[in-house]
């Protein structure tokens, strides 16, 4: 049995940011990691993936990017090397099996023994499990099902066509890669966002950062439930700074269809709402660009002239059904989102949908969670957002420990 003040579960960038924040406050702690630090990047990402955030946004907490290409996009391999170079009190190869107790008296059961501690930080990631629609079960057995967590590369898939379901970053990137590999690719498009890679001579994320769209704190948001469902940034990091939107995908041969609404008798049925979802994404993009233009005009920032993008191109009459067998679709990739895995947390802290309840990351006295969508700001799921969240939550833990003392 071990004892420490704070146990951090998970050594991704969130857990390591918290480790750094606790170290700065002189709080004794242990980071428990089932694999190696950066395990998700080592084991749950596809082969070709590069970060979609530019390098200047990808420094691990307290270590800003120091390379020569701040506007480039590092490969996952390069990002993993940053984890290798990290020194934190990490117990690797240690899987947490259960957490019980309360502030001052948490019991963390691991496959390497019991650890007692005063406070706990959950940093096991927002993307631990795929989020699948209920009708995934209705797919014919002959169709191979994958998720972005299990997908590695096009050669891994059975011969034939692919239906990619979901048009946020993962779905767009995977559809692009499959089409470029010569696969017939149909992309089912639900609620989505649209972003250009660059705008007015700079990375769109540079503008979003400067304008402050990542900063609005969770407690000032109108409808937190809604913003917590906002899809990931629909971008890709490539050396040529490609824009990855539905127009770009259609130009390389991807067919777009509406939201996948049901699977019946081996047929995928798509919603007829595609036009509206594309219009909504175009309008939202224009609102963002208006905000950026206004900011540039007000601050006199250096920028190329403004531009507007052509609306999303739609097929004349988008497909409403797809007979998987006769159309030769052998694989379905569910890029329908991710969810966390907190099944080992044996405390009454979940809502009716099984989601952990928290107030800006504070779950209960002495118990915090990190890395969830809009935990404290829109930045909370980004590498660049972890340091600020960790600092705020470390302050909470510090107070909890002081109250107890």
């Amino acid at each position, binding site marked *: 049995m071990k004892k420490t003040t704070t146990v951090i579960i998970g050594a991704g960038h969130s857990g390591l940011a918290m480790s750094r924040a606790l170290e700065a406050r002189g709080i004794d702690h242990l980071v428990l990691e089932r694999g190696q630090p950066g395990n998700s990047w080592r084991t749950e990402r596809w082969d070709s993936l590069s970060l979609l955030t530019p390098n200047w946004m990808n420094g691990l907490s307290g270590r800003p990017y120091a390379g020569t290409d701040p506007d480039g996009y590092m490969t996952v391999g390069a990002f993993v090397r940053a984890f290798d170079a990290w020194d934190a009190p990490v117990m690797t190869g240690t899987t947490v099996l259960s957490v019980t107790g309360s502030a001052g008296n948490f019991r963390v059961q691991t496959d390497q023994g019991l650890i007692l501690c005063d406070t706990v930080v959950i940093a096991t990631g927002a993307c631990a499990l795929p989020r699948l629609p209920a009708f995934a079960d209705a797919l014919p057995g002959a169709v191979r099902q994958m998720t972005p967590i299990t997908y590695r590369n096009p050669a891994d898939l059975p011969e034939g066509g692919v239906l990619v379901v979901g048009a946020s970053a993962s779905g767009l990137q995977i559809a692009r890669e499959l089409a470029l590999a010569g696969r017939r690719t149909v992309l089912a498009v639900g609620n989505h966002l649209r972003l250009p890679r660059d705008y007015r001579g700079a990375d769109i994320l540079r503008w979003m950062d400067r304008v402050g769209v990542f900063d609005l704190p969770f407690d000032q948001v109108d409808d937190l439930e809604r913003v917590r469902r906002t899809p990931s940034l629909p971008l890709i990091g490539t050396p040529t700074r490609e824009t990855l939107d539905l127009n770009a995908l259609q130009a390389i041969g991807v067919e777009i269809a509406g939201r996948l609404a049901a699977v019946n008798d081996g047929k995928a049925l798509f*919603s007829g709402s595609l036009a*509206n979802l594309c219009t909504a994404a175009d309008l939202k993009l224009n609102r963002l660009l208006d905000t950026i233009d206004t900011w540039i005009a007000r601050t006199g920032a250096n920028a190329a002239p403004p531009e507007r993008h052509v609306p999303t191109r739609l097929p004349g009459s988008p497909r409403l059904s797809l007979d998987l067998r006769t159309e030769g679709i052998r694989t379905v990739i569910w890029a329908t989102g991710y969810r966390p895995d907190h099944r080992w947390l044996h405390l009454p802290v979940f809502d009716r949908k099984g989601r952990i309840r928290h107030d800006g990351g504070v779950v209960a006295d002495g118990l915090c969670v990190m890395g969830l969508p809009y935990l404290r700001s829109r930045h909370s799921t980004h590498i660049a957002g972890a340091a600020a969240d960790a600092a705020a939550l470390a302050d909470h833990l510090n107070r909890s420990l002081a109250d107890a003392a």
Partner: protein
Amino acid sequence: MNVQNQVKAVQNGVNTEALLGARAALADMPAAAQFTWRATCEWVDGTHSRSVVKGFFGLGEEQSHTKSFTVESDHPPQFAAADNGPTPIEIVLSALASCLTGGVAAVAQHRGIQLHAVTAKVEGDMDIAGVLGIDADVRNGFSAVRVSFDIDADATADEIAALVAQSQKRSAVFDIVTNPTNVSVSVA
């Protein structure tokens, strides 16, 4: 709600406060949010039928409209019928237009946008070779539906487009028309 809504007193006749209150309350009481809508239809003569709506279930118990409403339906003379009312197809189109139009008003109210006039024109294309059983490859229903809004409001063109987009995202009938639903029909 944002500050803008509070300074501008917008009157679209939608009680957003009550709707937002209901939304907040129902989020914590999922059972109360379970509704069942009903209509009872009686055959009159030929293709003429009369539906009555009055009761529905929701908020955990039986509910009722303040009075009962009837909806007549028939077919025009071109179908050798007596034309006692709109076709069921036109009722569906009207339902879609009503649902989207009501949605536009509600979203406008929430966003602090004053409406002056809203008109929705709906068209549904149909190859009746389907319903007549002439061609098995033609579906019975619409091959395409178009809704065109004409909106006069104190807002920019983009803001109006966003109202219409959001109304579609929240519309029950839009969802009913655009997505498949399992329907079971039985005989008592």
